[in-house]
């Protein structure tokens, strides 16, 4: 018995206070960019073994809350914080765009071979619950050749507070007055219908396992899981499938007129080749960081992210930031004090 206790104490004292001393920086937030963030933090840790950036993808709502309360060192969101949220935060928070991504409508129709086109009205109707079957005329008219089954559509949405949701409902509010009135915009909304999945991962998981389901996820989640996703009709009437080029096109107009705080919406952007459900995603960094080591680590990461990090984005199907935005951000990093 005594030996057991002694060994246990020995193990605890070894595991306890550190052996190597990497600095741990904690962040939390959006699941939308999680694949590229986890890649970045992993690579950055390889280059700087003394800095570990621990990012938990709990949804943009969580990121906003945690960083407002300063229970984490930085947050991440794809739905920019509104003025009310910013005023309630414990410290002034700065938005730093990292990449561009796209929300895609992913679905699971076992008997369907090709890919579907969705009009704005179709998407709004499906998520409002007014369009209930796959062979509804609104869907059929955009897909003349497809054999749409006479089955109920199973809607999947986020159960957690999500920037991916924010982008999706922001788009729906712009194209559907009914949606704007009935449901509105936010990171968590009162969904008229559907199942709730946790995180992009949860929604993708549910859609993948549930026949006749449809959900919205960030592009990479559909691609990595080999799930089909549809093209969406943009403001010029063209059906565009999400891609790096289409997302970059969506950001073109906004980057020329980027506000100083980087908060901007690019859904339903004008342009022939733009993908209409695209968005920037932001890191939320406190303007004043108390711990100078953390401040140095975070600003160091941001500088790396704006240069080398951008190059890693396309492999994961995120569009790198436009040059004008990168230039603005590099200057804005100077606002962070530590």
């Amino acid at each position, binding site marked *: 018995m005594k030996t057991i206790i002694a060994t246990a104490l020995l193990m*605890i004292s070894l595991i306890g206070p550190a052996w190597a001393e990497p600095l741990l920086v904690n962040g939390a937030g959006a699941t939308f960019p999680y694949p590229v963030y986890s890649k970045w933090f992993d690579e950055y840790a390889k280059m700087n073994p003394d800095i570990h950036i621990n990012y938990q993808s709990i949804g943009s709502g969580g990121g906003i809350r945690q960083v407002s309360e300063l229970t984490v060192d930085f947050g991440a969101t794809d739905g920019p914080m509104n003025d009310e949220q910013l005023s309630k935060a414990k410290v002034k928070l700065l938005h730093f765009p990292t990449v561009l991504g796209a929300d895609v409508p992913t679905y699971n129709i076992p008997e369907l071979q090709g890919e579907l086109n969705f009009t704005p009205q179709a998407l709004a109707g499906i998520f409002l619950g007014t369009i209930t079957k796959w062979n509804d005329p609104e869907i059929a008219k955009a897909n003349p050749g497809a054999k749409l089954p006479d089955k109920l559509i199973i809607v999947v949405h986020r159960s957690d507070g999500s920037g991916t949701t924010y982008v999706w409902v922001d788009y729906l509010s712009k194209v559907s007055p009914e949606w704007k009135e009935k449901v509105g915009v936010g990171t968590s909304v009162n969904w008229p219908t559907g199942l709730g999945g946790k995180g992009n991962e949860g929604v993708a998981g549910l859609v993948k396992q549930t026949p006749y389901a449809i959900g919205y996820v960030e592009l990479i989640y559909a691609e990595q899981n080999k799930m089909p996703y549809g093209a969406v009709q943009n403001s010029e009437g063209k059906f565009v499938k999400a891609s790096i080029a289409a997302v970059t096109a969506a950001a073109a107009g906004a980057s020329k007129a980027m506000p100083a705080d980087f908060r901007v919406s690019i859904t339903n952007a004008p342009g022939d080749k733009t993908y209409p459900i695209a968005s920037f995603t932001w890191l939320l960094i406190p303007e004043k960081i108390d711990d100078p080591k953390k401040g140095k680590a975070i600003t160091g990461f941001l500088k790396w992210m704006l240069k080398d990090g951008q190059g890693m984005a396309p492999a994961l199907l995120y569009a790198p930031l436009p040059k004008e935005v990168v230039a603005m951000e590099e200057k804005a990093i100077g606002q962070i004090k530590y």
Partner: protein
Amino acid sequence: MTPGLLVRRRLANVLMLSLTGVCTALVLGVLFFILGYITYHGISALDWDFFTKLPKPVGEKGGGMANAIVGTVKLLALASLIGVPIGFLGGVYLSEYGRKNTLGFLMRYAADILNGIPSIVMGIFAYTIVVLPMGHFSTIAGGVALGIMMIPIAVRSTEEFLKLVPASIREAALALGLHEWKVVSFVVIPTAFRGIVTGIMLDLARVAGETAPLLFTAFSNRFWSRGWFEPTASLPVMIYTYAVAPYDDWHRQAWAAGMVLLMLVLGANILARLVLHRQLKG
């Protein structure tokens, strides 16, 4: 009684009794299915990486749960620091001093209430008293939540095993002139020791599998968690996170982790049962 009625009654008898057998077979079937399924999927997923590597970036195959395993060990160590002393000494009180008085009654009632509190509510409590004042998630917060959950079972099981020690042993020791505290510490407790330890081991096994209280206390961590003030990964939370995700490789790792956790928990239960059998018989 008509022969028809007798036949019907006999038929009903056979029917109902065999139904109970069916129920038993059903329940045992569920148990063996769960064990078998997890073992089958878990074994093929277990590799050396699982025990030694950190998780990989999202979507990439491979990696492991080394940090989660260590995290669970740390959490359990902290939990015991809180649960064992309070549970053990509380059980001593109930058995030696509190068998029939008001405080004893109140304490048993309080222990029952603590035991009945859903684990998620424990998580909320630990959040309000540890995470909020500290300003961030930490291993300590998780340890506190699990530790408080350990108290009621540790109290009751310690009490029960101490009560099993016959009064004659206590009286003999007292008659020999030993002070009361020595009687309790050096005679009664050692006699009941095996039972108490197994009770605590079962208690630990129970909290080892708890997920809900850790979701917003210890949170999670994709790297090693240093010391006690940082968030930490843990086996149950990793299982949950990986299970609800769409990545097949994560599912594979969830099965492996599930198997490790299951082996831990069931192993403790079986060990406890064996130890107690020997004690009760011998």
